[in-house]
Structures are given as C-alpha cells and as structure tokens.
C-alpha cells in the first residue's frame, strides 16, 4: 500500500502573522508544518504500523518555496518514509484550484511505479482555514472523497470513515483509491523521538519542478488564480478596553457594562 500525506508550511500560530503583497508571509524562521497535518501523518503511520513490515510506504508531499522543506522535514521526524517537495517559483500565489492541480500531478508521479491507494490530508490549514483543498484534490485525482473523518479504518481494499456533521453522524465507505481528510478528533499525534529527528536530518527530499510534473506554469500561480487579495491591513486593536479586579462589585460592573451597551 502506498499512502501520500499532504503537508503545508504555514506561519507559526504564536508568531505575528502578516501579508506581503497580497499573499501570506512565509519565512523559515517562524514557519512550521501546519498543526492539523500532524493528525494526517499520524493516521497514515497508524495504518502502516497495522500492516506487516514492508507492506506500506508513507510519503509526505508539500509544495511551495525553499522554506516549505521544513514541513516535509517535520513529517520525516514523525516517521514517514519519503518526502517530496514541489519547489517551483511559478506556484507562488496559487489559489486552491492551482494547488490541487499541482498536488494531483505530484501524487500521480509518486504513483508511477506503485499506484497510490490513499491520500490523507488535515481538515484545514491554520493560515487560510478554508478547508477547500481536500475536496478539490480528491476531484482532480478522481479519488473517492472521504472528508472530515473523526475515525478512519482501512480494510479489504476500502476506506470507511465516521463523519460527524451537526445534524447526524454518518458512516461513509469507498473503495480505494480514496482521499481522506482527518479532523483533530481522529487521533492524538505522536511526538518525534530523538532517533527519528537525527535520521530525518540526512534523509533525502525529492524535489519536483512543474516541468517534471508536465504542468504549464501559466496554468497555476498568481496569474491563474481565480481570486486576488486586493487589500490587506491589520485591524486596529479594540479601543477603550477595561479590566477591573473583583473586590465584591465585579459582577455588578460586568452587568452594568452589558446593560450600557444594550446587550441585555
């Protein structure tokens, strides 16, 4: 079985995040693998560990500039077998449809010798939070779409997920190949151990260009994007903030504030 986990390089949540010329500022200093992709890596590793030794290979796949290597490096530290980085200046500014086009071509290339059975993604990236990529990637691949999985089992050439929606909990199944996006309820991601961290340093990272993938650079990137950020500005902090310390009248002060604002 061959599994590809897509991982994204995003600004650290704890850092000061910003825009530069309409795209998210990404630098190696305060960037990291998207936290929710840890659940995707964990799901892939659990499937691998449930199978006999040597029967499953897990690839981590990312796309982006040179800094994005940090994302697949993190996946190697967690224990994936191989790392692939689509590194091409022409992908900068891609929208979700361009990104899905590139990742689908990379999955196809990874599957040239041994077909890819499963693609696993996180439920969202904590920078854009659109949650659109899993659907778009499944569509481009022609794989079954099993998204927002809070549980995943793979058996008998099929994947089955639990999908918790507000009105009902669904169980959905599909024959492989399938794309599965997992939520942060699906598992508890492991921590990298020292041995894997050391090993990850020297593991090779395969690099693809758009030419390697047979993609016309004009069909992806900022110019092909169906959306463009035309203005981005930091929001001013809330004004006139008040904090009081309760000395016996804190509750009354709170209530009076709400009454004054017409909120009760």
């Amino acid at each position: 079985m061959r599994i590809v986990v897509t991982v994204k390089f995003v600004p650290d949540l704890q850092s000061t995040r910003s825009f530069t010329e309409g795209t998210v500022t990404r630098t190696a200093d305060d960037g990291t693998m998207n936290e929710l992709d840890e659940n995707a890596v964990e799901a892939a590793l659990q499937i691998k560990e449930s199978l006999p030794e040597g029967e499953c290979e897990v690839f981590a796949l990312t796309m982006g500039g040179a800094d994005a290597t940090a994302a697949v490096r993190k996946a190697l530290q967690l224990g994936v077998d191989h790392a692939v980085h689509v590194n091409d200046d022409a992908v900068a500014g891609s929208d979700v449809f361009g990104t899905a086009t590139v990742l689908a071509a990379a999955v196809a290339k990874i599957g040239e010798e041994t077909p890819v059975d499963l693609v696993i993604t996180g439920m969202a990236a904590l920078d854009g939070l659109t949650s659109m990529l899993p659907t778009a990637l499944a569509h481009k691949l022609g794989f079954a779409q099993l998204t927002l999985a809070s549980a995943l089992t793979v058996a008998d050439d099929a994947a089955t997920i639990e999908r918790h929606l507000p009105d009902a909990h669904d169980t959905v199944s599909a024959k492989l190949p399938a794309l599965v996006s997992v939520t942060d309820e699906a598992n508890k991601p492991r921590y990298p151990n020292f041995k894997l961290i050391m090993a990850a340093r020297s593991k090779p990272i395969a690099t693809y260009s758009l030419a390697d993938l047979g993609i016309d650079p004009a069909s992806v990137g900022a110019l092909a994007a169906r959306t463009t950020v035309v203005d981005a500005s930091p929001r001013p902090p809330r004004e006139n903030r008040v904090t009081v310390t309760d000395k016996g009248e804190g509750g009354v002060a709170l209530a009076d504030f709400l009454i004054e604002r017409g909120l009760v």
Partner: protein
Amino acid sequence: MSTVAVLVEHRGETVAQPTLEALTLARTLGTPVAIWLGDAPAADAVSLLGEYGAEEVRVVSLGEAGRVPSVAAAGVTAAVGDAPVLIVVSTFVNKEIATLFALETGAGMVVDAAGAEWVGGRIETMQTVFAATWNVRTRINAERAVVGVRPNTTMAVAAEAHGAASVVPVAVETPEVRETIMSVEPQAVPDGAPLSEAAVVVSGGRGTGGDYTLVRELADLLGGAVGASRDATDEGWIGHEHMVGQTGTTVTPALYVACGISGAVHHRGGMQASGTIVAVNIDPEAPIFEIADFGVVGDLGDVLPQAMARIREHKGA
C-alpha cells in the same frame, strides 16, 4: 439585475437565520433565488424566503444520497443554472459543496466572508483572517463567483416590497459516485440557535472546573448558546460540538462571554471577530484580557451570580 442564488440552510422545515442574512446580502447584489436541498418546503418556509426577497425557491430532492458532497453539488449546480453569483453559509459541508460547484463551473470562490459587493463588474469580498487580526479584501477574477458568508455578519432585514416566491422543482439525475453512505445516526438538535449562529455565546473553560451550571444559567438568561474551550472538551466536561476555536466552531456573535478561559491562540481564532467580548478569569495575566472589551479579574462563583442578579433586576425594572 443579476440573479444571485442562495443555498438555504434549514433544519427540517425551519429556515436558519444565516439564510435570511444571506438573502439580505444577495438583495444588494441582484435578484435572489433560493435553492432548497431536501423534500419540498412547507408554505411557511416559502413565504419567509419570499419576504426576504427570494423570487423563486428552486427545490432539489436528493434523498439520503444528498449527504454525499458530489451528489449535493450536482443538485446545486443544476439549480443555480446560469446565475453568476452563488452565496452559501460558510459551514464545513457547504464549503465542500461549493468547492465542487466551482470546479464544475470555473467560478472563483471565497469562504468565511463578512460581506460582498460588485466592483467594476467583479465580486469583491471582505473578511477577517489570522484570528481576526487582519482585514482582507479579495477580488474574484472569474466571471462567476461563489461566496461563503459567516453567520452574524449581515443584519437580516425583510425586503420592503416583495411578491410571493414561486416554487420551482429542479430535476437532477443523481450522478454515480464512489462513496457509499453506510449509516446515518441523527443527532438531537438542542433548543435555540446553534452555536455558530447564536447572537450571544457564553463559553466556559478550565476555570469552570467542569461545572457548567453558572455558564448555562447565564447563557439562558442572555438567550445565548453555550460554548467551551478545547481544554474543557478534551477533559470530557462538555461535548466537542460546543468547542469554540479554529478546529471547532468559529463564532461571530454580537456578544461573547468567556468564563474561566485563558484565551489560547486556538480559541481566540474562533471568536475574536465577535462584536463585544467580555471575560471573567481569576488570572490577571490571562491573554483573553488583551482582547476583551470588558474584563473582570475574579472568581466565576462570585462574579457570575452577582452579574445575573443585576441583569434580572434590570430586566424586571
């Protein structure tokens, strides 16, 4: 005038409030038509949609197969027809349906928007990102646009003049799909507005120690929904469906009350765009106070009962 399709959120026969907000927004962009997935709506629902400006209610009945995103998307695509704009409420399910619609039609798409307008023949959207610390304006370059709107970002107002909405059944051939629904286990729907749509949210975190009595009481008093931090849902004190945060529910109520919540970045990302933020926490260093319009450093057990007594007194007056 352009036709603007609005995908209706409904729970059974009840039209959800964000749909009325979306129809209000749609009226500023063109002539709204409503798209109803499910069994044909009752007369009350049709007339409500008409009051908010829908000229037509296009009904697509897909049965249980409609729970598969690609089946729902086929239905929506047929019902939208050649309308240049589709507005959906920004939920996880609708994002999937709308993404497939955009792939099918070449539309450009923005989700989690707080508003939209025409600028030079193209739709532009407004939204907040990075835990509501930035404002972003996005132009949709494609001729067709899909906009996912957040609840509570447009004030729902009925149309001044409106006719009765006509009901138009849309025939769709259910596409062959690779996914099979094995089982559907309906969940009990709590009374009142769901967390994502509530105008008031009262949330409890670690500081509750697992006792939500006061949090629920305050939520009831304010007519709001009960939320929680990740800490609290991880402890099993309250169900995951109550979690406010980047991976739980994102809320933008007029009033957000954080009780015993420190305000970790994951939590702030799910509530920072709220209208007014109020926080009660025993720890004066809690980061929640950096974003609260009004904060009380104190014990929940002292502050909340006193605040509720004062509010009841005010309401009774």
